[in-house]
């Protein structure tokens, strides 16, 4: 949802005169939506601005984003950061991979999802009431 939200916002701002770049880790969601400029880091979700505890990687990631911001020749410009999360790419097989879950884990995940959905609903209603 996060990647979709910033993609929709980038499109809206761009259409209204603000130049934008999206920094993200979910390539398909951003490109499917369609944004003017996108710096893609092939990292686990939550690390769009560089590697944790690695200021150098964070600085080079932002610098790359700035370069794309100023020099993209056309909309849908995606640049992929050259940084690698790990030498072993097997982390990519884990995220929300239903094939890797046991029936018991699936049952627990569903229960937790329903529980969080209820919490979100309550929080949303409280926020609305407070407005």
């Amino acid at each position: 949802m996060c990647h979709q939200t910033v993609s929709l916002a980038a499109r809206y701002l761009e259409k209204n005169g603000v130049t934008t770049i999206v920094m993200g880790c979910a390539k398909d969601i951003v490109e499917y939506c369609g944004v003017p400029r996108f710096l893609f880091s092939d990292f686990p979700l939550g690390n769009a601005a560089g590697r944790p505890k690695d200021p150098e990687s964070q600085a080079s990631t932002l610098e790359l984003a700035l370069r794309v911001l100023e020099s993209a020749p056309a909309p849908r410009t995606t640049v992929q950061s050259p940084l690698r999360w790990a030498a072993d790419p097997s982390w990519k097989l884990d995220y929300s991979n239903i094939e890797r879950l046991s029936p018991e884990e699936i049952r627990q995940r569903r229960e937790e999802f329903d529980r969080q959905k209820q919490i979100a609903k309550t929080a949303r209603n409280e926020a609305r009431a407070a407005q």
Partner: protein
Amino acid sequence: MIGTDEYLGFAPEHDAPIPYMQRIRDYYQGLGYGAPYRWAHYAEVPFQPLKKPLAASRVTLITTAAPYQPGKGDQGSGAPYNAAAKFFTVYSGDTAIDHDLRISHVAIDRAHTTAEDSGTWFPLPQLRRCAATGRIGEVAPRFYGAPTKRSQRTTIERDCPELLAQCRADNVDAAILVAN
């Protein structure tokens, strides 16, 4: 004898960007939920090149991270998904000071990252450095927080106009939007 992959130096097949839309579709169907989510999808994409050089431009950050809310459950490093920490309207913050922003309310990769360093999702200190060195003109006076919602309609009709209004009020030339 070595195989073709090794001979030609091919990467493993799964060493490609994760197909999140397919993964998430299969996941929720596997959990027993109904119709798959329809992701936002456009054929046309707007394009507004910078109107002045970056070194003369005012740049802001837009984040989906949430200000830390004491009393709203675990929002720390390694926290499980925490819907109670969600926020629902656009917020802003002073870019001259540091902020404690968290990402426990969004679906980050909890198996492979722990959200221990906000520099990986909120590069405000790095952006300030870019202003100090003259790489950008200046950091805009405020950054903005965008709530993540399942309803694209709410995002487009309520939150996007609010973000634009705030960008205009602050005379922003360019925005860096960081997803989680």
